């Protein structure tokens, strides 16, 4: 036993009292917005390391920002993916379709056709351009704002709307909250309402692909807010330990409902910089630049597919709308943020790039927008034939009890009988269709 205490607590001198730091966003409702404090490098200046490089070679890129589209709307620098105009037009179309779809579904929720909706306005490039850079059979583990991937992979809009309406044609049998899609056929994993849970699952899927000597890789998306969840850190650790072929995307859209990115650590480090501590490759990309997003994802996908291991990509973007139909961002952030956002709008930027190339025009764009509105309208009408939420056209009651287990145990069979009996008591005329 020590004959005196290890340290003398009276020897602290004149230190000031400790202070708690609680982050505060730069702008609140009504404030003018000035983003000049953001460090946004010019397009085309960052180097593009070899896809097989040591992870540490990418770490300077975690501090910068990969940008391809310059202020003159031209593609510049080592990260220019040099896509052909046809691919660019397809990418533009899917992004515009995603936005048209969001607008329509948002209105549908306001009209009472469903309970809930979430738009991805302003963030279309982070999912659509990523989907273009992956192979269609690479497994994606999305969060709730990656509808662009599903649309890019050709999932029918009508099926998406059936799910949103929870109607009798909904492939998920009305069980899930709107937009919590799932499509195995499109290598699109079932979306969870709990945050970041898909991240370690993506690492596990990628490990399985490696165990089996497959060629497919996994990719996952979370927001910067949910990068704070322990699941994200479990995922990074597993991925780095097992060199899993997985691409982790952090969509830094600045806001997690009412909490700005500072509540996920943005005051101290970039989100891409988390890669440094785990020893995995990291890239930070202008998330409103579809070409930069494509190039970063392509780099990471090629690396993963060649046994180069995991990459973390931070997509620096802005959530232009509320978190969901249940949110009112006017309560906590300045309305001027959206208009002042220095990285612009991803659809407008790709459009201007195509126009600068002489491969697109304002008239063509306007015509496309009208066409897409009609396409969404037609899909909506088709879906409405199978009902909207709460109007009786739902899945048979027995389906509520199916898929809890592979086989229905006796107690669920009894409860299913109960549910149907209750229905008949309430509506004696009712017949299950």
């Amino acid at each position, binding site marked *: 036993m020590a004959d005196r205490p290890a340290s003398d607590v009276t020897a602290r001198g004149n230190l000031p009292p400790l202070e708690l730091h609680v982050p505060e966003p730069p702008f609140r409702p009504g404030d003018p917005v000035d983003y000049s404090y953001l460090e946004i490098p010019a397009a085309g200046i960052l180097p593009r390391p070899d896809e097989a490089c040591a992870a540490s070679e990418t770490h300077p890129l975690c501090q910068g920002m990969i940008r391809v589209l310059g202020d003159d709307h031209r593609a510049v620098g080592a990260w220019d993916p040099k896509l052909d105009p046809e691919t660019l037009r397809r990418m533009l179309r899917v992004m515009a379709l995603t936005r048209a779809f969001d607008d329509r579904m948002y209105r549908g929720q306001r009209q009472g056709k469903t309970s809930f909706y979430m738009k991805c306005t302003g963030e279309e490039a982070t999912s659509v351009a990523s989907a273009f850079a992956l192979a269609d059979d690479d497994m994606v583990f999305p969060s709730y704002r990656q509808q662009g991937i599903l649309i890019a992979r050709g999932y029918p809009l009508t099926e998406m709307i059936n799910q949103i309406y929870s109607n009798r044609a909904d492939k998920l049998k009305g*069980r899930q909250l709107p937009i919590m899609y799932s499509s195995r056929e499109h290598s699109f994993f079932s979306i969870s309402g*709990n945050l970041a849970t898909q991240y370690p699952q993506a690492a596990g899927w990628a490990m399985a692909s490696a165990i089996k000597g497959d060629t497919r890789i996994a990719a996952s998306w979370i927001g910067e807010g949910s990068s704070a969840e*322990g699941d994200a850190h479990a995922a990074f650790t597993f991925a780095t330990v097992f060199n899993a072929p997985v691409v982790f995307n952090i969509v830094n859209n600045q806001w997690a409902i009412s909490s700005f990115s500072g509540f996920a650590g943005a005051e101290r480090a970039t989100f891409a910089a988390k890669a440094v501590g785990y020893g995995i490759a990291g890239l930070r990309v202008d998330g409103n630049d579809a070409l930069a997003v494509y190039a970063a994802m392509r780099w990471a996908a090629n690396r993963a597919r060649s046994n180069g291991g995991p990459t973390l990509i931070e997509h620096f973007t802005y959530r232009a709308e509320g978190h969901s139909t249940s949110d009112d961002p006017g309560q906590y952030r300045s309305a001027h943020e959206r208009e002042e956002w220095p990285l612009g709008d991803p659809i407008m930027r790709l459009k201007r790039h195509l126009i600068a190339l002489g491969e697109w025009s304002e008239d063509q764009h306007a015509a496309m927008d009208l066409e897409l509105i009609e396409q969404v309208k037609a899909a909506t009408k088709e879906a409405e034939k199978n009902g909207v939420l709460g109007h009786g056209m739902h899945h048979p009651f027995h389906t*509520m009890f199916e898929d809890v287990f592979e086989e229905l145990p006796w107690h*669920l069979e009894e409860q299913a009988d109960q549910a149907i009996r209750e229905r008949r008591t309430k509506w004696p005329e009712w017949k299950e269709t």
Partner: protein
Amino acid sequence: MSVLEEGPVSLADAPIRRLNMIEAINDALSVMMERDSNVVVFGEDVGYFGGVFRATAGLQKKFGKNRVFDTPINECGIIGAAVGMGAYGLRPVPEIQFADYIYPGLDQLISEAARMRYRSAGEFTSPITVRSPFGGGIFGGQTHSQSPEALFTHVAGIKTVIPATPYDAKGLLIAAIEDNDPVIFFEPKRIYNGPFSGNYDKPVEPWARHPDSAVPEGYYSIPLGKARIVREGEAMTVLAYGTMIHVAEAVLADMGVDAEIIDLRTLVPIDIETVQKSVEKTGKCLIIHEATRTCGYGAELSALVQERCFYHLEAPIERVTGFDTPYPHSLEWAYFPGPVRIGEAVDRLLKA
């Protein structure tokens, strides 16, 4: 805040306001922060914004960012930090935005907070109150509708409290914050804005018309572990809590059954005396909860009643619960233990 001013009612000497449940919870937090500088409030979106259900609205402005603040989205961190602050001597009241999101924090609650007093022989305690909205009926799907109370009642060392009215919400929350043990305080979000009869096709009644929306200003507390007899009766004893109190009241009134309805308010420790006395009087027992059936809190209630009142029972104990499935979206009302399911059980008890 939409507080309807009405004249003082004779519930207490303090001025009475008509509050909904959210306002009553907000009031309780405010009263306790005023009284005890060790009370701190934090969680996802609770600071500047005041919570996604507005339960902490205005508190940051009133008490400052040192005591009311947003947190990173990490429920393990929220509860773990609360345990650490409790060890320092604070009285943290963290919010978990939905009960469905509490699972990443379970290790901190179950292995740490619940056992801190025991493992340190009382040297360290966890005087924390974890508030969390729970339950369905708002088309929240399987990740915004769950009733996981039985996961917590099963853990030694955690108290579980569920209010059913604004008056109780304030008094119970104050008692929970003052309690030196960890308390999980589940708020039935379906009845935040008004009591619910179970008839989802009828408009929501605001709290202002309900007598228990009369909430006195200032400090008062309702002891944990004391049930409330909502209505005295002879035909059967109904044991319930939260939203289901109001559904049970409406159904039994519609059926004209003279039931004794008991709002348990605290699930652990349960007010066994009130339960036992009532069942001995009525001889029949109906248990109602929204949570899934198997190993739900109703199973514990049923066992307790059977152990203590067996020779007084005139009929098998009835359990009305949610089904043993995840909470569905489109078939929410087929899942919810509503008037028809309750009515069937009441009929069986009456005929027994």
